[in-house]
């Protein structure tokens, strides 16, 4: 019974991935003359390298998991918000500010003992990410400013905050480029392979936690009720405004934790031009995983595999790693154009609609606010 439900839930995302790969190979073929003449087999070479780079060896698998961890956390940051009817495009900003906080506290406690420095740096990242997530939640709940636009604006502002802090007050003395000082003892221990750091575990702990929170706790029930209908939730004695702020803070904390994992586990400092796509990839992960923690885990591993395999694809096929971004956008497109997928594969429409996604406010401006 459960297996069948899982299969039904996975069929459309699975086919969307297949169609996206077809679309991606068309792009690769038609853009191949730009580099070295038309090459019809290039997509096969590229995809083979992509798989090899992500699952071909022990190191590749570790790399996939390490890449998947922040994507899963960011995916949860978007997906849990979905359940409350919120579209959190701000995971990017929450990730960056959280990472910055981890870098700052880590640098400050670089010489303190690890068991003290690591938890403090993590807590700082979660707190700062939460606050950065709570801001658009607050604006949504109390002024009606739509979170889609405010979170995007906060993403840009986060970039400037990072640029200011890293080139200004926190700039490491003597570094050849603008960056924060090393986090030293606050760096996360490597558990397995070359870079399988402790932060990877956070993601896999967060999955059951988010599941329990959403489906087994009172607040999760309230979150889902608010997502289904803020007015009904208020009638039932819940406080939709407060729940929106709390949910966004929780999601921001998850994204902040993802940022901390990257800084404390991989780079060891925050460079001024820290470029990442984790926050936006989180949107793909959440939608592909149908906003369910288990689905998000699989989607995160899939996209993590793509990220891990991309460098090898670039080396062996000459296809730029950005191809992965193109594939992600295409996956999203085919997911949304479910009708097209059903038509192409002759799948009869069932009631297996992604109900949660229908609760995402379809408009913005004044009307989407829950009235007090």
């Amino acid at each position, binding site marked *: 019974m459960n297996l069948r439900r899982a299969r039904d839930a996975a069929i459309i995302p699975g086919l969307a991935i297949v169609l996206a790969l077809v679309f991606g190979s068309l*792009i690769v073929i038609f*853009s191949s003359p*730009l*580099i070295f003449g038309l090459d019809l087999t290039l997509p096969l070479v590229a995809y083979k390298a992509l798989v090899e780079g992500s699952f071909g060896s022990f190191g590749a698998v570790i790399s996939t998991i390490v890449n998947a961890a922040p994507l899963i956390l960011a995916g949860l940051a978007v997906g849990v918000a979905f359940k409350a009817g919120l*579209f959190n*495009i701000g995971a990017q900003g929450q990730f960056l500010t959280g990472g910055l906080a981890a870098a700052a506290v880590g640098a400050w406690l670089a010489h303190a003992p690890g068991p003290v420095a690591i938890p403090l740096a993590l807590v700082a990242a979660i707190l700062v990410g939460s606050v950065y997530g709570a801001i658009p939640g607050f*604006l949504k709940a109390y*002024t*009606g*400013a*739509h979170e*889609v*636009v*405010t979170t*995007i*604006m*906060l993403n*840009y*502002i986060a970039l*400037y*905050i990072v*640029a*200011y802090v890293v080139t*200004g007050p926190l700039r490491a003395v003597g570094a050849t480029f603008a960056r924060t000082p090393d986090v030293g003892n606050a760096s996360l221990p490597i558990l397995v392979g070359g870079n399988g750091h402790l932060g990877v575990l956070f993601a896999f702990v967060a999955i059951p936690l988010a599941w329990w929170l959403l489906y087994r706790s009172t607040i999760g029930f309230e979150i889902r009720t608010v997502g289904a209908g803020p007015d009904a939730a208020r009638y039932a004695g819940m406080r939709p405004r407060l729940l929106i702020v709390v949910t966004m803070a929780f999601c921001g904390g998850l994204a902040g934790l993802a940022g901390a994992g990257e800084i404390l586990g991989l780079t060891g400092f925050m460079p001024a031009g820290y470029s990442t796509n984790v926050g*936006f990839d989180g*949107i*793909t992960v959440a*939608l592909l995983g149908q906003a369910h923690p288990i689905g998000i885990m699989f989607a995160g591993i899939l996209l993590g595999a793509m990220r891990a395999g991309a460098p090898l694809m670039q080396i062996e096929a000459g296809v*730029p790693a*950005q*191809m992965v*971004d*193109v594939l*992600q*956008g*295409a996956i*999203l*497109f085919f997911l*949304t*154009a*479910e*009708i*097209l997928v059903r038509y192409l594969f002759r799948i009869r429409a069932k009631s297996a609609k992604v109900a949660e*996604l*229908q609760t*995402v*406010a*379809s*408009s*913005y*401006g*004044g*009307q989407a606010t829950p009235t007090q």
Partner: protein
Amino acid sequence: MDFILHVPVIGLLLQFIGYLVGVMTTNGSLIITLSTPIALGALCGFMNERSGVVNIGIEGMMLFAAFVGWYVAALVNGGAPTSPGPLGITFPLLVGLLAAIVAGVAVSALHAWLSITVRANQIISGTIINIEALAITGYLNLLISQNPIPSAGNFQSFHVPQGVASVPVLGWLLTTFLGHGPITLTMLVLVIVLQILLFRSRWGLRTRAAGEHPRAAETLGIDVIRLRYRNVLLGGVLAGLAGAWFTLEYIGTFQGGMTNGRGFIALAALIFGRWTPIGAFGAALVFGIADALGQAVSFNPPSGDLGAVLSGVPEQVFSALPYLVTIIVLAGVVGRSIPPAADGQPYEREAKAT
């Protein structure tokens, strides 16, 4: 930071207002230039949302159009020197402009299909467009940059003759409003034309009806689905123009992600301007001022106390200003703005009785 406390705040505020007015008058032309993509993007949003389709994919449409326009113009040009006509118009640039518009319409068609026919969540549809536009343009631009081709240049601003420009007031008005390239000039015309059409034409009435109460509109014989399709596609023309502004008028070359959130700011301008073309243009000017202020402070800083204080403010604050203004505007500090009633709701015809 101590010295700030010793400066009289009121005097400083007055100095700042004086400086701001100075920036607005001496940089009037720059402000209108910088507000062009925001105004055009807002007009695109206007076309969509007045007929009931939410479009947060404007950013992606602009970026894609900017890329296509630039690349097609460069391909047509082929690196050959050309003799530009008035306003720097050349054949390759015109073809590029056309290509940008086609690109804008093509992406709009995708959005229209997803949000009108498929009845997908329109916010998600817009998000997909933003993600995919950023990805594809970044990917192709990277490939192209391995064998770079020279750009086709860009449109030039109209030069108000020296004699007229030196006339007080009139000269300032003419240089501020007419001293622009063709896309900005088109934008100024479109703002007025669309404002009149919205409230004075049959199309405007029908569009408003479809956005406020589609079922009632359909009862009166308006084909809501068709009207929405047409408006979203026309909005694509405007997004295409906005994109072309980046690569064919303002900068003259393409950089990944160069629209930098202007498409989202355009949405805020639309809300701020209460879903009218003139209002959206006025709001776009506010963002233009926020943009120009940053440039003015770095290139032409004020003197005296104000200069001392402003030089202590990190440059990033000014860069972040348009985004901050957007949030403040959306938070309704300037008053509540009410969207069209059916905005974002897919329209479903009632089943025919059989």
